[in-house]
C-alpha cells in the first residue's frame, strides 16, 4: 500500500517537474524580439517584392516552355528541345549576344602617365569588384577584353599576370562590354556605375574607368572554350 502511494507521488511529481521546467524554459527564453524599425522592414519588404516578381517572371517563362512543349508534342518534339537547348546555351554564355548595353574603357590614368609611372595590368580583385557591381544591376552578359564571363569564369593572378578564363588580360587600355536585357536596364546600370565609388578604386591603381553612354547595339562575344563538368553526368536512358 505504502509503496503504491510513493510510486503515484513519484509519477505526479515527474509530471509537475516537467511542466515547471517547460514553463521555466518558456519564460526564460522568449523568442528573440523584433527590433527592426519601419525603414528596415520596408527595405526588407522591397527585397522580398523584387524576389517575388523575379520568381513570377521565371514561372511565366517555365509555363511558356511547358505550353510550347505541349503544342509541339504531336508535331515536332525535337524542335522544342532544340529551342530549349538554344535558350540554355544563350543563358550559359555559349553564344554571341547582340543587344542593348554599354561599354567601359579602362585606361592608364593621365596623372600616372604624366608622372611617368609604369602601366601595370589591372588587379584581379579590382576586376572582381567591378564585376560584382555590374552583376548587382542586371549586367547579364559581360566580356572583359574579349573574354566572355560565364558562371565558372576564373579571374585570377597567374605568374603575376591577371587572367580571365585563364587567358591574360592586356595591360590597359582595354574594353569591357556589358549586354543587358533592355535599354532601360543599360541606363540603370550606367547611372549606377556613374554614381558608385568603383571609379575611385580604379584611380588608386592609376587607372581610369570611362563609362560610355548606353548603346542600342553591343556585341558580346561567345565563350569559346569548353566548360569543364566535374560533377554533372549524363543521365542514363529511362531515368
Amino acid at each position, binding site marked *: 500500500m505504502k509503496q503504491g502511494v510513493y510510486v503515484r*507521488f513519484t509519477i*505526479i511529481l*515527474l509530471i509537475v517537474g*516537467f511542466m515547471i*521546467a517547460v514553463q521555466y524554459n518558456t519564460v526564460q527564453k522568449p523568442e528573440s524580439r523584433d527590433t527592426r524599425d519601419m525603414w528596415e522592414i520596408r527595405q526588407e519588404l522591397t527585397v522580398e517584392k523584387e524576389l517575388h516578381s523575379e520568381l513570377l517572371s521565371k514561372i511565366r517563362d517555365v509555363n511558356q516552355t511547358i505550353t510550347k512543349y505541349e503544342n509541339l508534342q504531336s508535331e515536332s518534339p525535337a524542335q522544342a528541345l532544340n529551342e530549349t537547348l538554344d535558350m540554355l546555351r544563350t543563358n550559359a554564355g555559349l553564344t554571341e549576344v547582340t543587344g542593348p548595353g554599354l561599354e567601359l574603357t579602362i585606361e592608364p590614368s593621365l596623372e600616372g602617365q604624366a608622372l611617368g609611372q609604369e602601366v601595370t595590368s589591372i588587379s584581379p580583385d579590382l576586376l572582381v569588384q567591378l564585376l560584382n557591381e555590374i552583376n548587382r544591376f542586371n549586367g547579364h552578359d559581360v566580356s572583359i577584353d574579349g573574354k566572355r564571363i560565364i558562371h565558372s569564369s576564373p579571374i585570377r593572378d597567374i605568374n603575376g599576370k591577371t587572367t580571365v578564363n585563364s587567358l591574360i588580360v592586356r595591360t590597359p587600355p582595354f574594353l569591357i562590354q556589358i549586354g543587358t536585357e533592355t535599354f532601360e536596364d543599360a541606363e540603370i546600370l550606367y547611372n549606377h556605375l556613374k554614381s558608385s565609388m568603383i571609379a575611385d578604386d580604379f584611380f588608386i591603381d592609376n587607372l581610369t574607368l570611362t563609362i560610355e553612354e548606353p548603346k542600342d547595339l553591343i556585341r558580346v562575344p561567345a565563350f569559346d572554350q569548353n566548360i569543364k563538368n566535374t560533377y554533372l553526368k549524363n543521365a542514363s536512358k529511362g531515368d
Partner: protein
Amino acid sequence: MWLPLLGLILGISLGLLTDIQIPSVYENYLSIAVLAALDTLFGGIRAQLQQIYDDKVFVSGFFFNIALAAGLAFLGVHLGVDLYLAAIFAFGVRLFQNIAMIRRIILTKWTDRKGTID
C-alpha cells in the same frame, strides 16, 4: 521517501534538457496547470498525513483539476473575462491552506515525538 524527490528532479531535468518551449499564447494555460498540479500534490500529501488518502481521489483530482483550470482559462479568453484569475485565486488559497495544514501536522508529530523521548 526519496523516490518522489527523485521523480521531481528527473522531471525537471527532462524538461530542461529537452528544451521544449511552448508558444507564449499558451503560457497562461501551462502556468495555471502547474498551479493546479501543485495544489493537488499538496492536497495529496496532507491527506496522506491525515491518513485519509485515497488513490482514486488523488489521481483523478490531479488530472481533473489541471483540465478544469486550463478549460476555465480557455473559456475566459473566449468570453473576454479573466476567468483564470478565479482559478489562480481558488488554487492559491487552497495551496496555502494545505501547506499550513501539513505544517501543523508535522509540528504536532514532532512535538509528540519529542514528548515521548523526554
